[in-house]
């Protein structure tokens, strides 16, 4: 049985997003909430990568000797990958700020419970 990589990736992405939303919304531990948010971000990134996947495609780098028409038909669309790179950087910065805030709150309150700290 051949499993379609693109479809599998899309389903995995959706699963990651749903698990992430569940964790962020319902788990009490702040670190677990942040891990949930990372899942959502990763799910969206995987979704973008899966969209840009081209079976048998080549990297979007035009090398000397390549025929322009062959290249345009076989190269993968590079835009989703460029977007994912940017998205990873944004996700990392947001995560760093959130973790920094949690460290400060933990030092102040001595707890990681969202119910206790955020009053949820």
């Amino acid at each position, binding site marked *: 049985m051949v499993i379609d990589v693109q479809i599998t990736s899309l389903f995995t992405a959706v699963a990651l*997003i749903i698990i992430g*939303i569940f964790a*962020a*919304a319902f788990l009490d531990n*702040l670190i677990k*909430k*942040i891990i949930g*948010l990372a899942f*959502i*971000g990763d*799910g*969206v990134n995987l*979704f*973008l990568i899966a*969209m840009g996947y081209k079976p048998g495609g080549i990297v979007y780098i035009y090398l000397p000797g390549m025929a*322009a*028409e062959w290249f*345009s038909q076989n190269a993968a*669309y590079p*835009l*989703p990958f460029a*977007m994912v790179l*940017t*998205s990873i950087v*944004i*996700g990392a*910065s*947001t995560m760093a*700020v*959130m973790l920094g*805030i*949690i460290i*400060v*709150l933990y030092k*102040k309150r001595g707890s990681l419970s969202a119910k206790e*700290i*955020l*009053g949820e």
Partner: protein
Amino acid sequence: MNLLIPLMVIVPILCALFLNLLHKKDRTIKTIAIILALLLPALPLLANYGLHYFGGYAPLIENPTLSNNLPSLITGTALNTFHPAITYSFQSAQKIFVFILGLVGLLAIFTSLYETRRPSGVYGYMMFMGIAAVTAILLTDDIFNLYVFFEIAALATVGIVLVSNVKGNYETALKYMILGGIAAPLFLLGIALILGVTGNVNISDIIYSLQNGLVDPKNPVLLMACGLIVFGWLYGSGLPPFHTIKSAIYSKALPSGAALIQTFSVFIFIALGIIILRIFSYLPFSQWVILGASLLAMILGITMAIVQTDIKRMIGFLAVGELGYIGIGLGLGTAFGITAGLFQAVNEVIITAFLFIGFGTVLYQTRVSDTRKLGGMLQRNPLVAFLVLIAGFAMAGVPPLNAFQSKLMLIQASITAGFPELGVIMILLSIVTFMTFMKAFHAVFLRPKPVDLELKNEDIPKATIITLLVFLVVCIIIGLFPQVVTSYLQPLATSLAGGIV
């Protein structure tokens, strides 16, 4: 190519980085920040209208020398007209929006430098970075570029709150970031779905694909993308269900920071609202979504403001309610309605900043924001009391101030568009706004001073008074000569209403 267009974004970013380097060098920061902030409103005034292609990559149709050497597989299709680079569009509406953003930014930075004993380079960094991000959101024609700056604006907002040193700021900032951690990736997912269907992230190209049959507009994936982008719009601008966290964010910032953060919210609201109108105007329910969300924001924001005892929280909820007025104008879909909505956005930014900084003087003097513990401030500062009163009148839409003109236009637009009920609701809510403001004004300025109320600072900085006077002059000028602003907004409104985008 007009180089001043990208400079409107690059200059505040450079200013932010420079101020951060000068952290702890108080006097230098003060002088340099003011000089740099003067550039914010000056650049949009100096720039000419036009498009800016990053890297200089114009669409092939504009570059025949390049397109002559390419195969017809590219030049003979829609690829010939598509934008290969990130494109910034600077037209008359952007000119007035970026100018107002720059003006409020300048005044907020100016006030903050004199209200804090030791000006913080990090605080200045956050303010400049937020201004750069929102300017980019207003200028960009690329929806992914918009997402990037949307996130930067959210981080700058959180940064302003964190640096503000107000009790409970860390908790509120974390809550805001957790909600953003859900909403922002879902917004990106919406953009990814649009990219998947149209192959584009340039908004003009997406619209071209939809209008010229390159893509089926009835594709259900586009419906889902619309829903996700609307969700991002609700979060970014603080519409329900995010109205409580947004008003909490305002209340945990210093008054100058809150004035700037609400400016970010309003401009993100209109930038994303315009994009929803441009891309999804063919969907019959898009107008209803905007109208429904705006009506809910208006009713919830203003009614929740009545019961607040914290001044900043009250202004925050009023600001959310005022967003509803802007949305009603956009949702009506007529050229006059959209002009009125955009005009209301300009007025709201000025008035809410005026109120935050005006009431902020009371916080500066007493360090108390609870209206139940305040009173007798009229005797202390009659001039400030008068200026705050004018700001409240402006927000309620009392003539001849600026919001009177925009609210009158909105009511006229709702009647001519066949929604007189909306006009009635807007009048009623303006009365409630006035009542809410007068309740707070009475508690802070008119009631006798409580015995236990101590003044921590005797004198209000002159910079704050100058800022309030500038806001007063702007409110009066726009109120007496509304065409000064509306003439800039009409071309965009006409093109949005006519579907020419």
